[in-house]
């Protein structure tokens, strides 16, 4: 549902069904709503059968990259004699993204259950839920849910009386966006600086503590429970367009829009209807100007592109962007694009782990130049310099944070060039934000 607003009839509430329902947070409440039946069912299946159902469902990673979850799980070899680990990625730091926070604080047991099923399916006895340090409330709810699950014998050395060991622990981050990148997360979990690692080796071969590891997003793992209960066919049926994108997806919507919140719609939903109908359209007296549909790292869309988009992995790409994390940032006609992009660049400069020269220097110089243009001190040459730096930052570094910083710069200059030029030529910018500055 469109938490904190009431549910819209065109939403499909699978994961968000109990958002706002305080009873669903407790073990009793969760069980009354059908909780832990999926885990019970899973523990009666073989790991390979679970992986097959997930493969068949078409579920793809909800953390940003959209990698098929069943395939990722099939890289793990249960029973190879090594300890295996599952990491649940709850670092959620991508600007615009706040869906995992709602899952954890309203349905913490859905996460526990998803982690337990995932761990069993990949042959792991231990799962870590890595939660960003600022999420004090989600951490509290997750800890409470884990305590209840241990007390009820759902977790531990004899999970649900099956003789199988499943331990799940919360690990608190300490403020670093980059720790959401899977190899940085593993380093951080090991007690190191959160620097991403060079791949290969891939996590399934040598992950956390040097052992085979799978990293999945909170939403991905939570989605596994309904898939096991209702079946792959049901999940595949939630698709209005491209069969490569299946199921329902949570979108966290923010910025200049009537009803910001977390919404859930099926794959292939019309983005135009989503923005104008489901989320209530622009605030009174304003018009939408641009959308960043998948968190700060994906290309900015013009409204023309956004309105032509079908909301699935392929649909966003076809209209010049990406689904990413599902963090929809809406920008209206009172905003100045240069200001917004400059602030995003500052975010990436602040969060760069500084291992790679292109990223460390590139994010810093991009920020400097953009802020110069924002302050009316830029030149036309600066635009070429920015594009040059952006090209240098793309595809050249250990992780894609560097590319992510270049993305809004490239798409911004291409699609909203007049706003850059207006500032450079000292023209008055029609923008509330610029007037405030």
């Amino acid at each position, binding site marked *: 549902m469109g938490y904190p607003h009431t549910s819209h009839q065109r939403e499909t509430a699978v994961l968000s069904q109990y958002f706002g329902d305080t009873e669903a947070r407790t073990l009793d409440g969760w069980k009354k709503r059908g909780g832990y039946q999926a885990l019970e069912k899973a523990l009666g299946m073989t790991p390979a059968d679970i992986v097959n159902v997930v493969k068949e469902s078409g579920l793809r990673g909800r953390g940003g990259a959209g990698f098929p979850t069943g395939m990722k799980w099939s890289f793990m070899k249960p029973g190879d004699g090594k300890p295996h680990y599952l990491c649940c990625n709850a670092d959620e730091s991508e600007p615009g993204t706040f869906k995992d926070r709602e899952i954890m604080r309203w349905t913490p047991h859905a996460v526990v259950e998803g982690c337990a099923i995932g761990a069993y399916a990949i042959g792991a006895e231990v799962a870590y839920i890595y939660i960003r340090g*600022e999420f004090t409330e989600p951490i509290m709810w997750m800890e409470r849910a884990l305590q209840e699950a241990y007390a009820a014998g759902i977790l531990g050395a004899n999970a649900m009386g099956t003789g199988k060991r499943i331990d799940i622990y919360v690990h*608190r*981050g300490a403020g670093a966006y980059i720790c959401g990148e899977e190899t940085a997360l593993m380093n951080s979990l090991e007690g190191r600086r959160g620097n991403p690692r060079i791949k290969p080796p891939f996590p399934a071969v040598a992950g956390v503590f040097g052992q085979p590891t799978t990293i999945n997003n909170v939403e991905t793992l939570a989605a596994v429970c309904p898939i096991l209960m209702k079946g792959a066919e049901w999940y595949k049926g939630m698709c209005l367009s491209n069969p490569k994108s299946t199921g329902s997806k949570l979108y966290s919507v923010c910025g200049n829009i009537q009803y910001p919140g977390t919404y859930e719609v099926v794959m292939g939903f019309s983005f135009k209807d989503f923005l104008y109908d489901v989320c209530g359209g622009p605030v009174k007296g304003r018009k939408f100007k641009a959308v960043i549909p998948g968190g700060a790292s994906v290309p900015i869309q013009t409204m023309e592109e956004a309105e032509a988009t079908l909301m699935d992995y392929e649909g966003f790409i076809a209209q010049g962007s990406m689904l990413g994390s599902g963090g929809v940032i809406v920008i209206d006609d009172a*905003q100045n694009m240069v200001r*917004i992009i400059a602030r995003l660049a*500052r*975010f990436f400069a602040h969060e760069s*782990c500084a291992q790679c020269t292109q990223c460390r220097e590139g994010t810093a110089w991009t920020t400097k130049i953009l802020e110069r243009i924002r302050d009316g001190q830029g030149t036309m040459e600066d635009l070429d310099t920015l594009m040059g730096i952006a090209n240098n930052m793309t595809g050249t570094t250990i992780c894609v944070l560097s590319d992510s910083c270049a993305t809004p710069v490239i798409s911004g200059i291409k699609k909203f060039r007049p706003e850059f030029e207006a500032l450079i030529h000292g023209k008055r910018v029609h923008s509330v934000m610029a007037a405030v500055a």
Partner: protein
Amino acid sequence: MSTKNMGGLESPDMASHDSPGHETSYTPVFTGDVRKELDTLLTRYPTKMAALLPALWIIQREHGWVSENGMAEVAEVLDLTPAYVKGVVTFYTMYHQHPVGKYFIQVCTTSPCGVCGAEDVVKAFLQQTKAGELGVTSPDNKYTVIEVECLGACGFATPIMINEEFIESVTPDSVSTILARLP
């Protein structure tokens, strides 16, 4: 992260609260019940080093910040070197390497909150706490205000944190009520 040279980019929020602080005396943390708490944590991981972030959180909880002495104590209990611990501490922005005000106020100003007026919330806090500048503690030692990157609650602009408490949908008008409510 905070210790690198951002190509000479000044980072006002970090300037003072990340510089190392000094203390005259230090009370060890990992004794009695807190030592037991650490021992329980150690059972969760195959290596001692993995308990580093949790151990640092405990130091900060007990002392309000992570001093050189605190880092040395953590190094000792986890069989690490103090230099190694410092290297890790400086990577993460949430460990205070300097004493901060009784109320450490973090306001998100990343673009999604920025387009909803987050900067005015920062201004209101700086004025009303008398801290005046980002990262500087107010004369009465009560408040330190910093800008923070996305807090993961962008639909509730503007989210802020005061110590461990997360507050959603803060506006310039609600700042005085929030401050008045602090004990």
